């Protein structure tokens, strides 16, 4: 069966590089699922979770911002490159990290209310990232997934 090569890259590290069967991604226009032999595509990434399916198992990751490129490499393998501003495996989102993210979100929210900061954009991005972590972690808390 054909597979796709999925790469999730952030400025900090390579989060994942793996052959998978399919992958669902949150784009700014809605969620899309990429299967093998998908046509070349470029899209903006929204915040949410990327779910790769490999051997019937779900591999979820929390992402926020960035974009994706789908194309075939020289060997004819469909390659999905996710260049995310931020990405983490759901298994890395421990309870403790989530609590921290929640606290940080609350703190940021307060800060944003307090003043019209020049750094509004930065705060907004960070807030969105923190909230997204909490959302994704909550969603996957009760489900089964591959670590």
């Amino acid at each position, binding site marked *: 069966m054909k597979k796709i090569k999925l790469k999730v890259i952030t400025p900090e590290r390579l989060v994942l590089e793996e052959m998978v069967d399919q992958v669902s991604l949150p784009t700014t226009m809605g969620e899309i699922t990429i299967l093998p032999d998908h046509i070349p*595509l*470029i*899209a903006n990434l929204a915040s949410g979770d990327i779910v790769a399916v490999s051997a019937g198992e779900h591999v979820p990751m929390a992402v926020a911002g960035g*974009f994706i*490129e789908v*194309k075939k490499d020289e060997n004819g393998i469909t390659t999905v490159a996710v260049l995310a501003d931020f990405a983490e495996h759901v298994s890395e989102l421990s309870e403790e990290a989530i609590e921290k993210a929640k606290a940080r979100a609350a703190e940021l929210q307060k800060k944003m209310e307090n003043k019209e900061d020049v750094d509004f954009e930065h705060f907004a991005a960070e807030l969105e990232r923190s909230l997204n972590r909490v959302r994704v972690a909550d969603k996957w808390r009760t489900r089964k997934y591959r670590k």
Partner: protein
Amino acid sequence: MTGTNEIKRRIKSVGNIRKITKAMQMVAAAKMKRAVASALSSRLYAEYSWDILSSISRNVENIEHPLFVERETKRVLLVVITSNRGLCGAYNTQVSKQAVRFLESIRRKFPSAEFEILTAGKKGERLFRRMSEKIAASFLNLPDNVSLRDILPISRLIAEEYEKGTYDRAIVAYTDFVSSLVQRPLIKQIAPISKRELKEFLRTIGEEKNKIELQNGNGDQEEKGRPFAPKIDYLFEGEQNALIGSLAEKLLRMQIYQMFLESRASEQSARMLAMKNATEAAGEMIEDFSLVFNKARQAGITREISEISAGMVSVNNLQG
């Protein structure tokens, strides 16, 4: 005994210098570790994003975004990334030399074009001011461990001025970190993004002065692969030009950021090496001086003994 005192003083002063260079070496080593780690970790992202950009510029026709449109070269912006402080070996000299050489050859190619320099770092600023080049902007207060936010003003300035048409080309001279022993000064065009044009453009200049090292990424592979590489017909989700625009700006920023990271990693490695050499040289100097000092001391003692024994002989002779 006056000779030995002089030497003693020199040994002491060289010893003090060695202490300082040793300390600076340690500091540079610690900073290097961090700088190298951050440069390496974002390298993959930067390389990938550059690939995507050039792939878009190759495969998508009639892109309206100015970053992809080649214009007649009338005004060129040269960005030179150097350090604020010296004592880092040939680091600044190398990148400055490369930039100056590049400037000369591009002047010859476009005699009517105007050139402006954007410097990041005191050393580059000083050099180009001395050469009385026109300095468009000078960024001095960048920390040692640069973050993306520190780069924002620079990338915004470049992108905005380029889009407005103040400049038709933006080129960066920076230092690529190869290893802690090897750093390569490089010239890279960041705007417009048009790889094929760029390569030819750089090649003609490279022929004039083949010493200029040019960044062509994985150009060789691509050269071979191109005849077979099918045209990729990208589908864009949403409005194509808006998407490409936001993409290009983001990736441009990332490129500039990566160049700074590479330069910083190179700077710290160069400094560490320079300080290590200085420390070793000081050690050798102390050894040499100690040898001279011991010889002088021994000579003094011998002289005194011979004086005393000569005195004794003459006294004995008198008595005899």
